[in-house]
């Protein structure tokens, strides 16, 4: 897997690059600002770009804007936004199309196995949302009517789906059988009124629906 990192703090940039290399991830470029990021992606055509939310010159949301551009200009590219804090508005802006997108808190790097797993999911067109982001989105989704019909367990499962987990991973995390997870997922699809089609795509749609609820 080939990765470009955009992070203005030299400590974090170098630390992350070192960690990823230890896990045999190829870091093809590590840059400090949004412009260099766009150039590096155009040059190296990586599988994933890891982008800090705050980048020079204003240290506000340059990273989010750069991520939006990357997703427009390079449809196949996975983008993992990487932040020290959770901003639901940023997640919502980027999640209009959750395929190949991730939003993680920086400290998740500490579990490098999980982190590389998230990178791989994003590179493969999946989703990786931080549990913190999911919790906030759930908190914000109180008003959403479609989501009100879900049981607490189904909400939990949907939250994990939003993080980008497979049924197997969800089953392990919630210590229930995979069959039970499948049942919950089917219920979620029915309750959210998602027609049966390509299942993989339906999972993304469920997350989207769920995010629409949060923005209602």
């Amino acid at each position, binding site marked *: 897997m080939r990765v470009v990192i955009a992070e203005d*703090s030299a*400590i*974090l940039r170098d*630390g*992350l690059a*070192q*960690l990823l290399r*230890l*896990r045999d991830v190829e870091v093809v470029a590590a840059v400090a600002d949004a412009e260099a990021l766009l150039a590096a992606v155009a040059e190296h055509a990586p599988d994933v770009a890891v982008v800090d939310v*705050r980048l020079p010159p204003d*240290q506000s949301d340059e990273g989010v804007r750069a991520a939006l551009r990357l997703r427009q200009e390079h449809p196949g590219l996975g983008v993992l936004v990487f932040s*020290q*804090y959770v901003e639901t508005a940023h997640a919502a802006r980027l999640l209009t199309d959750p395929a190949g997108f991730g939003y993680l808190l*920086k*400290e998740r*790097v*500490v*579990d*490098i196995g999980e982190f590389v797993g998230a990178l791989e999911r994003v590179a493969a067109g999946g989703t990786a949302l931080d549990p913190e982001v999911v919790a906030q989105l759930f908190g914000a989704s109180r008003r959403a009517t479609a989501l009100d019909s879900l049981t607490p367990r189904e909400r939990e499962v949907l939250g994990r789906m939003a993080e980008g987990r497979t049924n197997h991973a969800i089953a392990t995390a919630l210590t229930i059988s995979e069959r039970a997870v499948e049942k919950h997922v089917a219920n979620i699809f029915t309750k959210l009124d998602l027609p049966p089609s390509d299942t993989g795509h339906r999972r993304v749609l469920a997350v989207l629906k769920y995010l629409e609820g949060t923005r209602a």
Partner: protein
Amino acid sequence: MNRLRSLAAATFGRRALAALLFAVIAFPLALVGFVLVLVGLAVGGVLSVTTLGLWLIAGTVRGALALGALQRALARGLLGVEIEAPTPPTGAGVLGWRRAVLGERTGWRAVGCALATPFTAVLGLLAVVAGYVYGVLLTLHPLLKHLNHRTVHHADGSVSQVSLEFFGYQVDSWPRWLIPVAVGLLLLAVAPVLVRHALTPHRLLLAALLGPSAADRRIRALEETRAHAVEDAAATLRRIERDLHDGTQARLVGLAMHLTVIGELVTADADRDRVLAAVDTARSNATQAIADLRHLVKGIHPPVLDEGLPAALATLAADSPLSVHVTTDIRVRPTPAVESIAYFCAAELLANATKHSGADSATVTVTADGGPLRLRVADAGRGGAVIGAGSGLTGLLARVRTVDGTLVCDSPEGGPTVVTVELP
């Protein structure tokens, strides 16, 4: 010759002519205002049994306000006297407007001004007549004598033309004409001063009655300082958030990352040096995070300030690259807010002295005996410090004003610099 030219420049210079123009305009303007306001009030008073009277009086007050605005503009444009505009009366709807106009002091002060100004404005006009008109007439007397003279037949049959006569002394020929010319030149020379002084009562009257009242001024000052205090607090929070986000938090994330790296290296049985290098980086991140936090805490509220201003200032002096001599005489301990502002003023002023003065020592003196706290920071550097022009002093002054304090900076070019802060 040069003297004459400079005299002419002073008498007929731009400033002098502007004052002259003001004096000439002010009186007729004041007179017209006086008559209109008086008539308006009188007729309005007579009609005040009907609502028409009230409307007329309100209109008169509004007119007086407009006249005041015109007078303020003239004073600003021609005399360079800045009189702040008072808050205009406002009310919802026409009835609200009338109530506001009739009920607020601003309008009645303008009416008072309109009734009083003719008496002060006339002084300016008299000064113009005495200084400029007579000055010009007397100076040009030898040329103008034909226009106004009388013919005198003397006993010996001779005839002379007398154009000026003082107590029987006839000014009728050279060199006697030198007298009026000299007097005229003298009058012209003093004319600008004369006009300026004659206008002083007028100027004071306008400032007293057309500017904002003391209460208005106080409200305005409070609004300004409150806005500043709010901005200051927001900016401080923002700075703290930035420092935490970019400094401490990033360091801690870095630390966690390097601990992970160490774990990975140990798991992979990497060689000892690589592990030790990663440990080193992790440790330096931890140390730096601690230092960042200490620095940040100091910027919010230095812990030593809890022990009182003397201890805090002593620490500040010890930290300063300058040799700082601190004298404190604090009999009554000030409130924490005042202590904190005094501390940050001292810190900022010492930092300024370090950066700009070029001096190698400074003195800090604090006295508080129940009255206002006085902080004095002095250095013998190159001076030239000014409030404004983006200097740190502007920020300090704004901070000091939030508690109604004052900041005076005395810093002539070449030094020394003495900044005195008083906090009530």
